[in-house]
């Protein structure tokens, strides 16, 4: 249930944003989540609902954008999407890769009423 750990962290940020902008009720939260994080969508929603109870974001809608895993080959500079967990460059068979996207956990927007 690492989704709960992450949602707890996210709530720290949501509350900061709400305070900063005098938001009394958060109505919608949008996250960007990299696929390498292996979050289960239903678990994220469940954790969000559970943690939001009694907070400024109770009842808010949670939208999640999933970011695919993209890597760059250090040998030939080819950038490609990782499919079926195959971290091998299709051009040169290189396996020394930099992760370009896929590890994000980003609070993108907070929507609410002041």
């Amino acid at each position: 249930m690492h989704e709960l750990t992450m949602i707890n962290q996210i709530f720290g940020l949501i509350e900061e944003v709400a305070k900063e902008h005098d938001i009394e009720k958060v109505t919608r939260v949008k996250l960007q989540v990299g696929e390498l994080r292996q979050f289960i969508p239903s678990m994220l929603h469940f954790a969000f609902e559970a943690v939001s109870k009694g907070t400024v974001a109770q009842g808010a809608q949670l939208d999640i954008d999933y970011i695919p895993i993209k890597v760059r080959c250090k040998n030939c500079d080819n950038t490609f999407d990782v499919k079926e967990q195959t971290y091998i460059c299709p051009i040169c068979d290189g396996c020394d890769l930099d992760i370009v996207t896929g590890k994000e956990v980003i609070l993108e927007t907070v929507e609410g009423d002041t």
Partner: protein
Amino acid sequence: MDYKVMKKVLEANEFLAGDIRRLLAEKKTVMFNLISSPGSGKTTILEKTIPLLSSKYKIGIIEGDVETERDAQRLQRFDLPMVLINTHGACHLDSETVLSALQEMPLDDLDIIFVENVGNLVCPAEFDIGENGKIAVLSTPEGDDKPQKYPLLFRECKLVLLNKIDLLSVVNFSLSDFCEDLSTLNGSIPILEMAATSGMGVDEWLQWIEQAVQEEREAWLQETNC
């Protein structure tokens, strides 16, 4: 009203992890983060490693446990600087708890710190604690499918210690499938086979540590010269 935030959720943790990395570089102390499931043999590996390394390096331990002092008690006999972090339910160490543990340690007198993270293959891989290398420990009874199931850890680590290799004939573990999956996931990763209780593979592990410490020291030296 829509407020654009675009803030990394783990930013606070990563910021402190950066502080830890700078502190370790300043003190010339190399920190390894041992990550595994519960019961894979992390404490036993440390019990075998410490006496063999302590003639050459001054070692410190950060012991992460959800509850109890049991692992810390097992390592107490070595009389090393050790800080126990009981997370009381949290399934991983983070950079805040590790930084406060480091502040209690005599870093000027330490060459290597081993962090025994909380037994879990998921969250400890997500939380950077400023270590110089993550080491994934997997034991053969856990099954050969773990790299595919927990790709983040097996992508992020510098070494895989495959422990309890002496049980290979009695457990359902295909060494060839394991190595093949791992090479698809992280082709450059070294795998060391080990049976910590009998001492098998410990010499190779010690050599890997020496090499990793040497590389880290050379990197620090280069940064100083730049």
